[in-house]
């Protein structure tokens, strides 16, 4: 069930999207996004730069937050803005929970809009990519 204007209220949580990236998914993402920086798929390269493991692309986490909002509003609505900062690293084979809380519901220029605080969360409960988004609802 997609979100509907009448059922959305400030303070509500939106359905969580759980991700867990295999190294293969990071390679798909490299190809899909065109970001071929080796710290995301080459262990030796990542270690040589001082990382203990390969890390999940920041932009992939941004895209996960985009999916969180898209899957919530469906195709009747649309995603108008997605923004996040990359505060902590995430690693393959670990859950990345994408979550959101509605912060504002309003009408502007004839559109029904909802602002959502969004973030990715690692298994320790740390928000690794906090941000905000705006969706339009029918």
């Amino acid at each position, binding site marked *: 069930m997609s979100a509907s204007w009448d059922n959305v209220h400030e303070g509500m949580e939106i359905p969580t999207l759980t991700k867990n990236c295999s190294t293969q*998914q990071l390679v798909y993402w490299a190809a*899909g996004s065109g970001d071929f920086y080796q710290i995301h798929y080459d262990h030796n390269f990542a270690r040589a730069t001082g990382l203990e493991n390969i890390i999940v692309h920041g932009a992939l986490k941004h*895209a996960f937050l985009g999916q969180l909002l*898209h899957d919530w509003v469906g195709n009747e609505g649309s995603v108008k803005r997605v*923004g996040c900062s990359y505060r902590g690293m995430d690693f393959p084979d670990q859950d990345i929970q994408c979550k959101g809380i509605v912060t504002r519901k309003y009408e502007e220029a004839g559109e029904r809009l909802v602002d959502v605080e969004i973030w990715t969360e690692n298994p320790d409960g740390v928000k690794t990519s906090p*941000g905000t988004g705006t969706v339009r609802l029918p």
Partner: protein
Amino acid sequence: MSDEPQESLITDEMQASIGKDSEITTLEIDKTSVRMFARSVGYTDPVYYDEEAAQAAGYRSLPAPPGYLGTPLYDPNKRSARPTQVALEPSRPLKRMLNGGTDIEYLADICAGDVLTSTSAVSSIEERLGRLGEMLITTTKTTYRNQHGEIVAIMTGTGIRY
């Protein structure tokens, strides 16, 4: 380390680059690239894979999922289309780079078949002393237009060098 105030990391050349538009980058969106992107994120919504499903949902063709703003044309015989400001070196070398954040505002649908052109400009350069030591934080704004000249997306990116 001395306590002497150090010269700014930001060179005159970097300062002068603020607000200047880069060269234009051309980006294509096609059905294969939309499917690849959607698959790499893990979408299951058929609108990203099946053109009939996309049209039934009101899109012209497969829509670009959030985060996908096309694939820059690649030609090994042409020099890189990277924006020139990326190459500007600070007054003291900073070896490492981190992606600090991404913010994308969508102003119109972007679908397979669209050809976008983008230009970017540095909107600010700040220096900070943080837990990574000396950091240079560059905010870049990239504007994407479609083949009809409409602005379809504005991306604000934050890059951190340290």
